[in-house]
């Protein structure tokens, strides 16, 4: 990747670790000044306008949006001005001033993002680890008791089993259907329309999708007309209607269908782009050698997009680990369909045990970590 090294960013701008820390310290001071100033201004304007504007939530939201954007601009503009005042890019020490300012400026640009990321993502990870050694309210130290409880807990074991099922089935099925859809839609005239329609469930919330599919799985006692299409089909062929989402073990698969339905479009879009990126020559050569369309697809095209397939697969895997809305809305973990994310939510809201809930969250984190490491390595390879 391109690195912007200009004459102004010479090593003189960052003389050793001491200079770096000094830069950070100055940046911090300017940043705090800038943020405090911007936020105070925004709050003052908000308070002033709020007395005039009607008390409607949506109006306030718009106001917050405008003021938030204004405060951001105010901060970035103000902090840059402040930096230019401290190190004026003119006068007798112009070269040193520009170098010093260039050492500090990146931190002013990064400042708000780093602070927010620190509070909302980094601190919680550390805090969760600490909480997992504490009791329900997070105050008393209990050592490894939460982990010991987890190891023996039957519901946790059920969640783990179901999560592993989800991890195997959903990424595989979504990638498979996505690949098929991508390969087929690229060959027909109305392919783009078809793609849009298959892609559409991506825009639907998990809860919305749950309602849609609960309607499909709807069950009426035998004899009355079925209004769920699945039972209608089943009874049409003479079988007995089933209450699908209450059948232990198999109900997991009926819930997985929902996520596969949502994610296939994502896989399709990305794999379709990858398929189009395959060099034409390899395909032409295969055609000249007399390969059939299926041979071309499986032996020429698919091997060339393994990298993209892996990316799609891991992205969906991460999503699966976090899935919670579907289980909550469809069964709330009843009938043997519990998963980790919903189990964690259960202990947090109904069990009111922050220690145990944090421990379950850490298990999810541990399962994500290998993918995280792999992603970072891939990203670093790309940037070199």
């Amino acid at each position, binding site marked *: 990747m391109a690195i912007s090294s200009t004459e102004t960013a010479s090593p003189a701008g960052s003389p050793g670790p001491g200079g770096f820390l000094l830069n950070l310290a100055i940046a911090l001071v300017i940043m705090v000044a800038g943020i405090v100033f911007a936020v105070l201004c925004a709050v003052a304007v908000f308070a002033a306008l709020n007395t005039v504007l009607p008390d409607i939530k949506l109006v306030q939201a718009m106001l917050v949006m405008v003021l938030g954007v204004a405060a951001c601009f105010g901060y970035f503009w103000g902090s840059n001005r402040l930096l230019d005042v401290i190190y004026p890019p003119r006068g007798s020490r112009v070269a040193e001033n520009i170098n010093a300012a260039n050492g500090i400026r990146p931190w002013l640009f990064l400042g708000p993002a780093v602070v927010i990321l620190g*509070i909302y993502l980094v601190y919680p990870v550390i805090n969760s680890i600490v909480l997992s050694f504490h009791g329900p309210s997070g105050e008393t130290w209990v050592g490894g008791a939460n982990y010991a409880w987890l190891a023996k807990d039957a519901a946790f074991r059920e969640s783990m089993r179901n999560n592993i099922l989800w991890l195997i089935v959903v990424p595989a099925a979504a990638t498979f259907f996505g690949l098929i859809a991508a390969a087929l839609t690229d060959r027909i005239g109305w392919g783009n329309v078809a793609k849009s329609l*298959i892609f559409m469930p991506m825009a639907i919330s998990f*809860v919305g999708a749950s309602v849609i599919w609960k309607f499909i799985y709807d069950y009426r006692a035998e004899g009355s007309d079925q209004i769920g299409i699945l039972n209608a089909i089943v009874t049409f062929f003479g079988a007995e209607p089933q209450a699908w989402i209450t059948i232990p073990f198999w109900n997991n698969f009926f819930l997985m269908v929902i996520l596969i339905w949502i994610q296939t479009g994502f896989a399709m879009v990305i794999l379709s782009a990858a398929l189009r990126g395959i060099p034409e020559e390899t395909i032409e050569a295969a055609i000249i050698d007399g390969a059939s369309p299926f041979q071309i697809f499986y032996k020429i095209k698919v091997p060339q997009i393994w990298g993209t397939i892996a990316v799609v697969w891991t992205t969906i895997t991460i999503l699966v680990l976090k899935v919670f809305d579907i289980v909550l809305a469809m069964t709330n973990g009843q009938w043997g369909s519990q998963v980790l994310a919903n189990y964690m939510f259960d202990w947090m809201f109904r069990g009111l045990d922050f220690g145990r809930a944090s421990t379950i969250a850490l298990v999810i984190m541990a399962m994500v970590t290998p993918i995280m490491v792999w992603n970072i390595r891939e990203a670093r390879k790309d940037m070199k």
Partner: protein
Amino acid sequence: MSTPVGSRPALAWVVNISVILLVALWTLPTFGILVSSLRDKDQLAVSGWWTALTSSERNLVARAAPPENATLEGGRYVLTGNVFEGGSGEVTGFGISSRDPSAFAVGEEAELRGDATLTVEANGDYTIAYAGEPEPGRGQRIFVSSVEPPKFTTANYENVLFSEGLGKSFINTMTVTIPATVIPILIAAYAAYALAWMEFPGRALLLAAIVGLLVVPLQMSLIPLLRLYNTVGIGKSFIGIWLAHTGFGLPLAIYLLRNYMAGLPREIIESARVDGASDFEIFRKIILPLSFPALASFAIFQFLWVWNDLLVATVFLGNNEEQLVLTGRLRELLGSRGGNWEILTASAFVAIVVPILVFFAMQRYLVRGLLAGSVKGG
């Protein structure tokens, strides 16, 4: 792709039919709830949505006017009325006991107790004729099998929007979504510029950290932030959820925008630097306008994610009537109105219609963002 393979007619047929099947499988579930939400709630409860265009059979019980209302006509006491009482339909048969609601064909005379006869016509008009003056009492029960024409209505939507609180939730969702979509963009854009075009120690480390934070499960953040909010005094408020969504959206925003900005032509930025522009000016006047496609991509991602989110809203906004968002309301209705499909289908459609419209209108940017975030060298 126009390879010679695509020109084989048999294969082309197979491909077309397969795609039609796929598209049907992926759209019919949504179409089903759209159709259902527009149907009459009595019809929805007894027949599948795929029969919405056909007439539906229905058994109903009507009660005739009390006998003392009968009027003397041609030497007999006659009572008339209509079994549908303002509704519509076509009677296929009628009876006088619940066991056999179609014992008599339309137009036949049924013998009633007390020397009387009952006739029901196809349009629902009934006539009860008494030989003598009838004793006062309750009206005769008439059991009718009828065929109703398909009925479509917007009553379900009126009901959920104004009585079930969905209208209020819609406003709440908008209130959460608008600032939570726009505010992260600027913060991320400056950070992305620094990571793409500025030189400073620790840059590689920060980039790696952001790629790592992309996949940190939200579940990790809930409890620590909830405790933090309670300590600071933000509690369950819109401010809290705006900030939370900003925080959770930032890694993706920075990642997408940095990748895009790093790909911008180096010469533009270099020549601006030579002309004496500061980084701040370069960003505002050159990078920001050029990055519009990436900004739009992220805005759509964030919009869809915030609009459709249930977890963050449940934890940081709470479940009280005043603050419940659409997804939360839908989940609550699933619990409390599990069998009332006219309410559930209409509510679900209200909840998904805005993201679907945004999706179709801005699909181009969404796809571009997905590709920028995911496709790496094969």
